[in-house]
C-alpha cells in the first residue's frame, strides 16, 4: 500500500503559467480520474510526475518521503509508467522492438545483445491481453491508429508497474476495445496498481474511476468520489459554467441527394453502399479496423477507387486527389492530427488558412490582413485556447489542436463534410461547440458524414448510422433501431 503525492506543483512555459500550485494524491489500488478542459494542464502535470519536464516549484512524495524525479529513468525506477496522449511509438520499428526500447534490461543477453526469443514471447503474451491479433514482428507503421493505441497499452502494462498513468487511452478506441481495457484496468487495480486515468468521455469515468480530481486553467479545483458524483457539477467545476444537453441533435430536413456509393471497392474495403443527403448527419460506425477511415479516404480522393460507383450531386464522379474533392465541395477532416491534420512548424493562422488560401488572395499574393482577421475569428468561434493566432500549433494542447484541424475545413464551407473522429481528445465544453457547429452546418443544408468511435456520440448526433464490419457496410441503424444493441449486432457481423 503506497501513496504517491504531488504538492504545490507550479510550471510555466516561457511567460505562460500552465500549472499553479497543483496537488494530487494517488493510492495503490485506486483509479483516479483527472478531469479538465483542453489545455487545463493535465498532460503537463503527468509529464512532471514522470520526469519529462521539471516543475518550477513543488514536490513529489512517495509514501511521505520526498523523491526526486528529474528524468524519465527516475520515475521508471520508482515503478511509474506512462502512456502518453500523443502516440509514442517508433513507426520504423516492429511491435516487438517498440516494447524493447526503454525496457532493455529484461531482454539483455551476453554483452548487450538482444534476447529476441524472449522478447517475442513476452510481446505476444502482452498483445493477447489487449486483444490485438498481429504478429509481433509487424512494423508499427502498418498499424491503424486504434491498433497502435492497443500496442501502447500493452507496452505500458507489461513491466512491473506500481503506478500507471493513462493519458486519453481510449480516444481512438471503440466500445469493444474499451471494454477490454477496462477489464485490464480492474485487474491491475486488484493487483494494487495505482492508476491515473485521463479521458474526455464522461461516461467512462463512471465506469472505471474511484475518485476524480478536477483542474481548470492550471489550478486545482477539487476532488470528488466518483460514486454519486453529479455529472453536471463535475462539468461546472471543469469549465466554470453549465453545459446543457449532451447531444443536441436537431431534426433533419433532408434535401438533395449529395453522395451515393454503390458497391464502392478499394484495396481495403469492398462493396460499400451508403448515401448522404443535404441537411442530414449520417454516421459511419464499426469496430476498430473495420475500414471506416478507408471509406472516407476513397470518397475524398485520397485512395483510388477500384470498383463500384460513386455519385456526387447525382453525377458519377470519382475524385483523383484531395485537391479535386475539395474543389468540388468536399472537405475531409482526418483522424490523425499529427500525421495528417497539422503542419507542426506552422502557426495556428497558417494551419487554419491552408485549404482555403485561394479565398483570401490579392493577385497571387496572400491578403494578410484578411487572413489574420479570418484566423482570429476562427480562434474565437471555436474557442481555441491560444495566446494568439501566431502561436506555433505544436505547442497547443491536444484538444486545441483538434479544433484547429476542424477549423481549417469549416472555413472551406463545403457541401459535404466528412468528419473522421472529430472530437477525439476534445473536452466536453468544446465537444458541445463542435456539436453546435455540426448542427449549424446541417441547418444550412450541408451533408455531413461522421465517423466516431465514441458510440454514444455517434448515436446521439447522427440521424442514421451505417455500420461496417470487416471492410464492408453490414447495415444501417436508424429510427427505432438507432440504439447500442442493434448497432453492436451489426458491428460484430450479425444481421438485424
Amino acid at each position, binding site marked *: 500500500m503506497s501513496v504517491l503525492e504531488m504538492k504545490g506543483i507550479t510550471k510555466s512555459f516561457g511567460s505562460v503559467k500552465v500549472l499553479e500550485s497543483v496537488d494530487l494524491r494517488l493510492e495503490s489500488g485506486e483509479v483516479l480520474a483527472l478531469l479538465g478542459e483542453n489545455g487545463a494542464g493535465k498532460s503537463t502535470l503527468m509529464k512532471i510526475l514522470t520526469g519529462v519536464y521539471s516543475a518550477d516549484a513543488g514536490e513529489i512524495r512517495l509514501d511521505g518521503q520526498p523523491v526526486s524525479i528529474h528524468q524519465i529513468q527516475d520515475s521508471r525506477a520508482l515503478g511509474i509508467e506512462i502512456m502518453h496522449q500523443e502516440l509514442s511509438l517508433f513507426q520504423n520499428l516492429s511491435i516487438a522492438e517498440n516494447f524493447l526500447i526503454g525496457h532493455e534490461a529484461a531482454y539483455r543477453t551476453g554483452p548487450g545483445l538482444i534476447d529476441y526469443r524472449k522478447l517475442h514471447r513476452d510481446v505476444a503474451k502482452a498483445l493477447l491481453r489487449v486483444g490485438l491479433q498481429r504478429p509481433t514482428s509487424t512494423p508499427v507503421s502498418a498499424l491503424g491508429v486504434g491498433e497502435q493505441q492497443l500496442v501502447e497499452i500493452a507496452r505500458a502494462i507489461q513491466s512491473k508497474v506500481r503506478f500507471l498513468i493513462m493519458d486519453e487511452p481510449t480516444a481512438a478506441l471503440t466500445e469493444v476495445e474499451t471494454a477490454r481495457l477496462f477489464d485490464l484496468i480492474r485487474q491491475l487495480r486488484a493487483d494494487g496498481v495505482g492508476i491515473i486515468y485521463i479521458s474526455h468521455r464522461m461516461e467512462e469515468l463512471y465506469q472505471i474511476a474511484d475518485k476524480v480530481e478536477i483542474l481548470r486553467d492550471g489550478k486545482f479545483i477539487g476532488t470528488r468520489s466518483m460514486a454519486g458524483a453529479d455529472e453536471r457539477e463535475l462539468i461546472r467545476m471543469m469549465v466554470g459554467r453549465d453545459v446543457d444537453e449532451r447531444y443536441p441533435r436537431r431534426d433533419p430536413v433532408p434535401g438533395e441527394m449529395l453522395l451515393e456509393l454503390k458497391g464502392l471497392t478499394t484495396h481495403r474495403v469492398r462493396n460499400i453502399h451508403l448515401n448522404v443527403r443535404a441537411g442530414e448527419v449520417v454516421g459511419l460506425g464499426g469496430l476498430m479496423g473495420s475500414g471506416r477511415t478507408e471509406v472516407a479516404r476513397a470518397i475524398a480522393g485520397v485512395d483510388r477507387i477500384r470498383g463500384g460507383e460513386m455519385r456526387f450531386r447525382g453525377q458519377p464522379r470519382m475524385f483523383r*486527389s484531395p485537391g479535386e474533392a475539395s474543389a468540388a465541395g468536399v472537405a475531409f477532416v482526418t483522424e490523425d492530427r499529427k500525421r*495528417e491534420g497539422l*503542419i*507542426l*512548424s*506552422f502557426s495556428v493562422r497558417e494551419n487554419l488558412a*491552408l485549404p482555403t*488560401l485561394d479565398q483570401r488572395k490579392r493577385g497571387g499574393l*496572400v491578403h494578410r490582413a484578411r487572413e489574420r482577421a479570418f484566423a482570429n475569428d476562427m480562434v474565437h468561434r471555436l474557442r481555441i485556447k491560444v495566446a494568439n493566432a501566431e502561436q506555433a500549433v505544436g505547442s497547443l494542447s491536444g484538444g486545441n489542436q483538434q479544433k484547429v484541424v476542424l477549423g*481549417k475545413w469549416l472555413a472551406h464551407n463545403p457541401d459535404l463534410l466528412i468528419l473522421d473522429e472529430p472530437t477525439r481528445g476534445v473536452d466536453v465544453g468544446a465537444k458541445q461547440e463542435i456539436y453546435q457547429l455540426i448542427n449549424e452546418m446541417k441547418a444550412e443544408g450541408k451533408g455531413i458524414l461522421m465517423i466516431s468511435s465514441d458510440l454514444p456520440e455517434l448515436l446521439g448526433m447522427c440521424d442514421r448510422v451505417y455500420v461496417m464490419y470487416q471492410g464492408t457496410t453490414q447495415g444501417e441503424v436508424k429510427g427505432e433501431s438507432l440504439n447500442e444493441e442493434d448497432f453492436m449486432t451489426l458491428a460484430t457481423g450479425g444481421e438485424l
Partner: protein
Amino acid sequence: MANVLRRYHLGPLIGFLLLFIILSIVSPQFLTFGNLRNVALQMSVNTLLAVGMTFVILTSGIDLSVGSTLALSSAIAAGLMVGHTPIWLAVVIALVVGLLAGLLNGIFIAYARLAPFIVTLGTMTLFRGMTEIYTQGTPIFNIPTGFSWLGTAQLAGIPVPVILTVLILVAAWIILHRSIPGRRIYAVGGNEQVAYLAGVRVKKYLLLVYMVSGVLAAVAGLVLTSRLGSAEPTAGTGYELDAITAVVLGGTSLFGGEGTLVGTLIGAAILGVIDNGLNILNVNSFWQDAVRGAIILLAILLDRKKVTR
C-alpha cells in the same frame, strides 16, 4: 523569445555583424566602398544559387546538381555565342537548359518519388559529364564583348550582377513570403501528407522548386561566364556545398518547412565576408581553411537554438 530571435534572424545576424565589426577594426581596407562593392559582387553567384537552394530545401529536398547545371548552361550559351548566335538567344537557351535540368530533377523527385539527394547527385555527375563532352574539356573563350556587360558593367556605381541578384532576391522573397505558391511550398516542406490532404498539388510544387533552382543556376552561370569572359568545363565545381552552407547558416532547416530568404542572404554574406577578410588580412594560406572552419562553427554556435536539423 526564441521566436523573436528567429523572426529577426538574430542568430545569423549577430554572427555576421561580429565578423563585420572585427574586420572593420583589424583591416583599414575592409570598410571601404570599393571593398564592400567587391564583396557584394563576389557574393552574387553564390547568393543566386542559394536563393534557388532555399526553395528546394524548404520542401525538405536538396539540389546537389546546381554547380553542374551552372557549367552546362553557361558552356552551351558560350558555345552558341562563339558560333554567332545572337546574345539574347544564347541567354534564353541557357535559361531553358537550366529549366530542363531542374525539370529532370523534379520529375525524378516528384513523380518517381526518389530521394532528392541521390537524384541530384546523379544529375550532378551527369550534367558535369555532358559539359565535358560538349566542351571537349576545353574552356570556351572569345565570347562576344557585348556579353561582358552583364558581369562587368556598373549602374550608378553598383555592379550589374549585384543589381540583378537584389532584384531576384526581392522577387523570390515576394513569392516565398507573400504569395500563395510560397505558402504552399512551406506547407509541402512542413508535412507533405498534410499539404496533400489540404488540396495542395504536392508534385507540382516539388517540380517547381527544382525548376527555380535550375533556372537560377543558369542565371548564376551567365553572370560567372560574363565576368570571366569564358566558360570553363570545371566551372561551379563544389558550388552546391557553398550554396547549401549559406542556406543552413541562415537558419533554414534541412528538414523542410522552416527558414527564410533573409536568413539565406545573411548566410551568403557571412561566407562572402570570411573569404574577403581572409584575403585582405593576408592570412597564411595553410591557416585559411582552419580559420574558415572555426568561423563557421562559431557562427552557428551564436545561432544556437533548438535543433535545426
